[in-house]
């Protein structure tokens, strides 16, 4: 896995108040966007 995926997740993730709290899956890791930007 090397692609960056934005997954449709639960309510907290579907409507994040903070862009940096969006959950992404990258190289197998379930991360916050803030972790990689």
């Amino acid at each position, binding site marked *: 896995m090397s692609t960056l995926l934005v997954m449709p997740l639960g309510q907290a993730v579907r409507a994040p108040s903070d862009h940096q709290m969006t959950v992404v899956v990258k190289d197998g*890791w379930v991360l916050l966007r803030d*972790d990689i930007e």
Partner: protein
Amino acid sequence: MIVSIHTLPADQVFDVCIAGSGPAGMTLALALAEKGKTVLLLEGGDMEFSEDWQRLYVGQNVGDRYHDLDVVRLRQLGGTSNHWGGWCRPLDAIDFEYKDHCPNAHWPIQKSDLDPYLDRSLDILGASGPIEDQRLNDALQRIIFRISDPTMYFSSKYADVLATSQNLILAIQCSLIGIDTDRARIRSFRVRDLAGVSRDVRADVFVLACGGIENNRLLLHFNSICDRALVPDERHLGRYWMEHPTFTVGEVFSENEGDEQTAYFALTPERMREARTLNCGLRLEWTRDRGGLRKLAHDLGCVAPKLGEWIYRRMNKPLICAGALRAAWEQEPNPDSRVRLSADRRDAFGMPMAVLDWRKTPRDISTVRTAAIELGAYLARADLGRMMLHDWVLNGGPWPENDEFGGYHHLGGTRMSDGPETGIVDHDLRLWSQDNLYIAGSSVFPSGGHANPTLTIVQMSLRLADHLS
């Protein structure tokens, strides 16, 4: 009283004759005896493990990778529960409900039909106590398992009761090899020991409780030799066979694992419906393996340098830990996943061996993927840790070749249904076409949820005992 085939009472017509002394059969037998019924409990093995009897469980696997069929079952008093792990949790309400995204995964009864038997079942299994799940957000809940501690074994717990009971007779080394039916009612079971001695036993009511593979094998075989008298429409017989796929799906690190060695999670019903998944149980198992932690930190550092640095700064302090993410989940009921009879291999009694063609579906990976990502998201957003999922989970396969595969949970094949055109037994576990033949145990499960099945098996046997009383 405990007897052999030589000392079976001659000419007695029992109220109920039950084949199989595992959790389903023994729970039913004890409950019926307590209600004053005369019961004959047949065990097709010995009081303890015996290679000679166990050999009757040899079969073939022709589907997805699985364990040998004489390894995942035990043919002795207490049945396969002799290697039970002690995990208890009832099925969830959603497990019984109709789901338009998976129309075969529902029951003709509801959770409320089994709830009255929950406390007594937990007591029988030595696992009494509250089961109070904790909702973490709209998508995820932390769930509770009760653990039988020390692990309760039916064979040892009830040996004295069986030996002294007045109206319950346990007949050991009596393997069920035939059924006599007038097409509407069973007249007798034929049993045989390994020396070739046979007897016919009579009762008003008969119950098959031989386990989630053997119930299928026996019914398929008996149906074939009595011209489909037992199951006239056998399109579904042996089909929709399920396990709980059980695999390591990822790894986790956390700043603090808390006080517990293991934590359990599942999706909420709302999230399952929305994501069109089935049920999935996740468990985090913490390890003190610092080597594994370093590798995990290295991998994460390549993807998220800021996080990698954060971990390395704490690496030599007991502040962070690593864990495996394990999952055991509900398999989509699949008509192509089935037990059938071997065309050319027979057991010591000349009966066709079981052939297991276990087949999982793409939904079986999407279910665990959705649940695992939801847990990973929760951990990340709460800043409790980060999770890495294995490639096969994210890519949709291929399935790992070296793992647990399943929980030795054999479900389906003689499924409970709303009518004879969709299953084998009715909501009281009676065969649709027979007045007095019932099936007990997990082979009647139309779907499996993710919970270990023993508790539900016991609940259903207590319910069947009420029905037969």
